[in-house]
């Protein structure tokens, strides 16, 4: 209670500036990596734990296993059934969240920082992490819901486009796989147990903590959350990706709007080209209303409501992707504009003026990326999980300022090679 009062007084009197927040990192006795920022501005504690247990770690014939394992964690644990867990969380206003992407399975908790609520919330988180029951009836139900979701998604052009795109970028690689009706059908309770035991270990875990608590408290929390995890083997590398042959995939669909994706496997987390690619991408299609793709595809021609490009760095090279939707009769024309814009950008890079505008936005606007605990937590998790330097945030504005046109051209030449472009068009005429 005193701490809350103190926090309130601080909040009222001082200007607690988050930019340049002090990030601390250590290895817990359990072997888990911990990343922490003390932030007294609001009486909230956010904890996230990430495991190298994402979709890419599931066996090929059981795609969906990673997601199901993660989602069943809080559907029965430590003698409490899913109803009791839900009730107890609701009773203290705590929220459990997270999910699984290709690389990571995440469990996140947001709780009030008052000691009683916080302890109760963390206790539930610990139970869910360390004693999941994976009840068979719950698994059957969740398999059925997952299958229903897959069947529905397979009728939607956006979903179809995503699946075909990833499959073409990553044939014979886990990044290209999605759960199917068949693969989910094969998953058993034993599979969940086995996946959990072999992937949810402390040495494969990163705990990120931000909020109204001290370093000492964070140490205790991280250790308590991870000391009872299964003794899982250390992380194995994901297989290497290969560069796909250039190709175009067309899929029929009755929708009024074509969905178009263009891209290739491009960049790993921690790649030294990260900043030049980010800055270049801002100019090309990441900067929203001011990007080249927006200007040419939307502003000038009215071809699309949404057109964008981005890099998605992962453990193995994640995609560079351009995406848009346009009425089906226009698919060919819109794609041609995208290809021309991209080709021009690859050939000549940005103009000096565009680069300066990008620098101004990304460097000067940096505080917007970290002006809440929630936003900072996401960065902590990425820094911790991907082993990025603790100075990642502090370095960002400086590195952005230092980028040159030549840097961007060179980085794009290395990572965005037309010989490997995959284009997917769903519902185009």
């Amino acid at each position, binding site marked *: 209670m005193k701490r809350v009062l103190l926090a309130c007084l601080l909040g009222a009197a001082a200007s607690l500036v*988050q930019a340049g927040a002090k990030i601390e990192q250590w290895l817990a006795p359990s072997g888990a990596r911990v990343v922490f920022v003390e932030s007294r501005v609001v009486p909230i504690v956010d904890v996230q734990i990430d495991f190298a247990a994402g979709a890419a770690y599931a066996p090929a014939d059981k795609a969906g296993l990673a997601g199901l394992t993660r989602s069943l964690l809080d559907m029965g644990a430590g003698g409490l059934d899913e109803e009791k867990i839900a009730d107890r969380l609701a009773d203290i206003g705590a929220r459990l969240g997270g999910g699984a992407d290709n690389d990571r399975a995440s469990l996140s908790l947001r709780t009030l920082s008052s000691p009683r609520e916080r302890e109760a919330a963390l206790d539930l988180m610990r139970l869910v992490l360390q004693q999941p029951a994976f009840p068979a009836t719950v698994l059957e139900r969740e398999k059925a819901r997952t299958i229903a979701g897959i069947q529905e998604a397979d009728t939607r052009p956006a979903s179809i486009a995503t699946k075909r795109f990833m499959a073409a970028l990553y044939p014979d690689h886990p990044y290209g796989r999605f759960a199917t009706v068949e693969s989910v059908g094969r998953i058993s309770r034993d599979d969940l147990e086995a996946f959990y035991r072999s992937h949810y270990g402390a040495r494969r875990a990163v705990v990120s903590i931000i909020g109204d608590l001290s370093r000492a408290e964070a140490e205790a929390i991280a250790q308590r959350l991870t000391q009872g995890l299964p003794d899982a083997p250390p992380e194995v590398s994901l297989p290497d990706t290969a560069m796909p042959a250039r*190709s175009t995939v067309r899929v029929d669909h009755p929708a009024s709007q074509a969905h178009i994706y263009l891209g290739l496997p491009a960049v790993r987390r921690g790649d030294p080209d990260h900043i030049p690619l980010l800055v270049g991408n801002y100019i090309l299609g990441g900067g929203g209303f001011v990007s080249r793709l927006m200007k040419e595809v939307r502003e000038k021609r009215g071809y699309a409501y949404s057109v964008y490009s981005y890099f998605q760095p992962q453990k193995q090279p994640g995609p560079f992707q351009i995406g848009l939707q346009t009425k089906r009769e226009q698919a060919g024309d819109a794609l041609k504009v995208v290809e021309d814009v991209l080709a021009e950008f690859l050939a000549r890079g940005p103009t000096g003026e565009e680069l300066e505008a990008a620098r101004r936005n990304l460097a000067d606007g940096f505080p917007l990326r970290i002006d809440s605990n929630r936003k900072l937590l996401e960065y902590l998790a990425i820094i911790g999980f991907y082993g990025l330097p603790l100075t990642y945030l502090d370095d960002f504005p400086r590195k952005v300022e230092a980028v040159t046109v030549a840097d961007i051209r060179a980085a794009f030449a290395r990572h965005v090679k037309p010989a490997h472009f995959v284009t997917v068009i769903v519902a185009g005429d």
Partner: protein
Amino acid sequence: MTRKLLFIAALALSASALANPHEKTLANGLRIIVQEDRRAPTAVHMAWYRAGSMDEVDGTSGVAHVLEHMMFKGTKNLKPGEFSKRVAAAGGRDNAFTSRDYTAYFQQVPAPRLGEMMALEADRMANLVLDEKEFEQEIKVVMEERRLRTEDNPQGLVYEKLLAAAFQAHPYRRPIIGWMNDLENMTAADARDWYRRWYAPNNAYVIVVGDVNKDEVFRLAERHYGRIPRGALPGRKPQLEPTQVGIKRIEVKAPAKLPYLALAWKMPVLRDINKEREPYALEMLAAVLDGHDAARFARNLVRGSKIAVSAGAGYDATVRGEALFFVSGTPAEGRSVADLEAALRAEIARVASEGVSVQELERVKIQTIAAQVYKRDSMMAQAMEIGRIEATGIHWRDINTLLEKIRSVSAEEVQAVAKKYFGDATLTVAVLDPQPLPEGAPQKSAPTTRH
């Protein structure tokens, strides 16, 4: 438990007692609402106009949203696209959104750049230029948006048809994005008319949340917005929906795999925040059904009987127009929409006959308290809270009153509204009848071509 949490929340919220929202009204009627929040050197700046799709007329549905798009397309001082460039140059991000009751524009910037944002926003409040050529391109963009959100989105279609059926007279029957045919026949003059009619400082309010000083903000607002003359606002016809006197059922066929069901009952709206009780009880009811993961729909229908793969309920008491209580869901494999409809309604009937437990109410109340604390982590969330409540004519100072009123709802009051408002006579039901895709469509593809 609740009392303790209330104390904690009160402390947390009173921490900003010094930064409690402050307000000033300029001579031209523009209200400026400032909430100081020094946790980070950034600020949110929003301009809200009390004009939305409900103020449109047949034949030009969608114009409120189209004008929102056109607000980025040039003023007497800025070229088309220049607005966003200037925000970006200040290290900021910007966007806008249109609803039935309001249209709002915002930027998030490093705090020192607030003045520039006010200058930009004030400029387009007064000096928008609607160029024919720009309009011709942007209307195409809006049509693509409609295709994305509605034409190709089966559940979006269901929702659109549901509202159009539930309301016969009230303007809420029209979609915010507009009917496609209206978009195809819209002109720049329509957008210009809309702008001239509604975009005046006395029909707007500005919200700033962030690392700012209120007096400085008022000074900046006076400087940038102060010179804009007030406008003569047209009267608004209430267009109240006649009492519904019988159930309505519609079907929507669209390419999909799973059926979907949406129900809407006519409800009272919150107008007198102090005297009325039923809207608060209805908000409680919606939360008891679907306010968190331990609520009744998830517990009984998704997990318990497994009749639904998903189910939801919602009610918004604070709207400018008419209120609806929504219930929706997707049946599980092998269960029919009819079964699901019966099950959803049975849950409400059970509240009517058996009531709700004190514990259930406590749980919902704790959610609302916790949510207020969590909102303190986001300047945007705080600005949105103020913006939305003000759009309905409720003062931001009454936000705490609203929360207290909801927390004061009794189990008897929840049971009473469950008994009173969920018969057939005021119900509209929309069902998605999924149409299979043409034979083999998702799988078929042209052989991949090598270039």
